[in-house]
C-alpha cells in the first residue's frame, strides 16, 4: 500500500474543507471498501480524512421520516426497529450484504459510495476505463458474467454492488449531503450516474461533498417493500440480480409501485416505465410479466451474462407477486 497522510476531525465543515482543498484526499469511514482498493493500488489517496468522529452515527425516527446517519453501521441499521418497520426492504438488503464482521464496521455513507466489484477494475494489470480513463474496457470482450445488461456504455459495463441502494430505490430515500457549496438533498434515483464516456464518475457528488444522512419518508408503500437477491451461493456473496419492490393496492387496482433492480446495471436501476405500467391495473401474473418485459426493454447481454435477462425478469415477477400477496 502506498503511504498516505492521515487526519481526523469531529467537525463536518473541517472534513469537507480538508478534502475539498486536496484533489488526492478522501474520506475514510469503515474502510471496508477503500482499504481493500488501496492494498491493490486501485485507490492511492495522498490524504485520508477519518470521519468516524463526526456526529452522524444515529438513526432517529421523526414524524414523517426516519433519518439514518451516514456513519450508522450496516449492522445497527439492519437491526433498527424503525428501519425494519418503515422500510423492510432496506433491512433485508443489509442483512443479505457482506458478513457480520463487515456489517459491524461498514457505514451507510460508505455503502452508497462503494465501488464496483468488476475484476478488471480491481486488477491494475488489465484495462479499465474507470480506473484509467482511455485505457479500454477488458470486460466487454472478456469474462463478463457479472456485468451489466442495462445502462452500460462502450466504455464500461460494470455493475453497482450495493444491495442497500437498490432497496432505497423502492422506498424513495433521499441522500442528504454537505459540500463545499452548502447542503443539498438528492433523491436516491438521482444520486448514482451512468458511465457514458466518463466511467470514473459514479455519483453526482462533488469532490469533498460529504454524505451526512439518508432519509426515508414514512409511507404505506415503503412499509410493503421487500428485497430479493439471487446469488451464486446462499450467503456472503454479491448479487447476480436483485429486486427491491413495493406495491400498494386500492380497490383491487395497483395504486402505486416501486421497482429497483440490482446486479444488472452500472447504477442501482430504477425501472420507472415498469412502475408506470403497473399503476391502475389489477395485480396479476400477467401484469407482473408485462412489467418485467418492459424492464428489460433495451437490455443486451455480452455473452457470459446473457442469462441475467431472463433471470431478472423472473425475479421481478416473483418479487411483485410476493409484495402483492
Amino acid at each position, binding site marked *: 500500500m502506498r503511504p498516505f497522510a492521515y487526519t*481526523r476531525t469531529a467537525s463536518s465543515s473541517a472534513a469537507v474543507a480538508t478534502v475539498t482543498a486536496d484533489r488526492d484526499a478522501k474520506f475514510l469511514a469503515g474502510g471496508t471498501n477503500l482499504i481493500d482498493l488501496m492494498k491493490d493500488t486501485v485507490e492511492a489517496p495522498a490524504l485520508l480524512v477519518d470521519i468516524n468522529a463526526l456526529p452522524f452515527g444515529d438513526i432517529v425516527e421523526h414524524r414523517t421520516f426516519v433519518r439514518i446517519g451516514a456513519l450508522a453501521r450496516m449492522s445497527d441499521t439492519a437491526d433498527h426497529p424503525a428501519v425494519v418497520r418503515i422500510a423492510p426492504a432496506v433491512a433485508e438488503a443489509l442483512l443479505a450484504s457482506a458478513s457480520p464482521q463487515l456489517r459491524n464496521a461498514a457505514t451507510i455513507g460508505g455503502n452508497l459510495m462503494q465501488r464496483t466489484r468488476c475484476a478488471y477494475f480491481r486488477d491494475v494489470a488489465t484495462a479499465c476505463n474507470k480506473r484509467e480513463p482511455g485505457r479500454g474496457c477488458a470486460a466487454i470482450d472478456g469474462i463478463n458474467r457479472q456485468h451489466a445488461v442495462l445502462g452500460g456504455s462502450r466504455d464500461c459495463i460494470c455493475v453497482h454492488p450495493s444491495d442497500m441502494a437498490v432497496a432505497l430505490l423502492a422506498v424513495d430515500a433521499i441522500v442528504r449531503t454537505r459540500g463545499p457549496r452548502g447542503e443539498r438533498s438528492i433523491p436516491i434515483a438521482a444520486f448514482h450516474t451512468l458511465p457514458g464516456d466518463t466511467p470514473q464518475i459514479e455519483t453526482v457528488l462533488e469532490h469533498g461533498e460529504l454524505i451526512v444522512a439518508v432519509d426515508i419518508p414514512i409511507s404505506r408503500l415503503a412499509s410493503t417493500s421487500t428485497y430479493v437477491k439471487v446469488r451464486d451461493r446462499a450467503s456472503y456473496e454479491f448479487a447476480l440480480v436483485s429486486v427491491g419492490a413495493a406495491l400498494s393496492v386500492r380497490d383491487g387496482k395497483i395504486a402505486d409501485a416501486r421497482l429497483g433492480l440490482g446486479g444488472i446495471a452500472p447504477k442501482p436501476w430504477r425501472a420507472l416505465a415498469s412502475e408506470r405500467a403497473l399503476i391502475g391495473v389489477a395485480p396479476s401474473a400477467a401484469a407482473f410479466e408485462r412489467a418485467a418485459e418492459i424492464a428489460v426493454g433495451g437490455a443486451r447481454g455480452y455473452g457470459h451474462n446473457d442469462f441475467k435477462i431472463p433471470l431478472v425478469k423472473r425475479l421481478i415477477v416473483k418479487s411483485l407477486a410476493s409484495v402483492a400477496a
Partner: protein
Amino acid sequence: MPQIEIDVNGAHHSVPVEPRLLLVHLLRDKLELTGTHVGCDTSSCGACTVLLNGESVKSCTMFAVQADGSAVITIEGIGASDALHPMQEAFWKMHGLQCGYCTPGMIVSAVDLLRRNPDPSDDEIRAGIEGNLCRCTGYENIIRAVRSAAAALRNDESRHSVAELLPVGGSN
C-alpha cells in the same frame, strides 16, 4: 507518526503507528499476538476476526489508527491454554477444526454471535459465521461446536462473556 492508545485483551498500549499499518499487523507484528491469522488479506476469509469494543470486525480491513481509543479482544483474550473459553473447549471436543488456521477467527465470530443470540438455530449459526471460511472441516462440526458451546454457556452465565476485559461502556 500518530500515537494511538489501545486496550488489547485488557492491557493498555500506547504505540506510534504508521497510518497504513493494518490493525492485524499491529496485533501480530508489534504486540506479538500471533493467534489472529491472515488468511486472505482481502477482507474475505475472516481468519483475522477480532472483537473491537465488543463487536466482531476483520482486522485486515481496518487501519490501526481507526482503533485508537478502542478495546480489542483477540483469541488470546478469549481464553488461555490452561483456561479455555467454553467455545474453545467445544471446538476441541466436537472436532470443529482440522488444520486450525480459520479457528481463531471462527471462534471470535461465534463468541460475538452468542453475545447477540444466546440460543441460535443451526441456520442462525450458519448466518453468524458466514464471513468465516474454512477449507478443511466442511463446517458441520463447527456448527455442532457452536451449538454445544451455546448450551454450555446458557448453563453457566458466569462464563458467558468476555465483557470483563472491556473497559466500562465498551461492551453492549
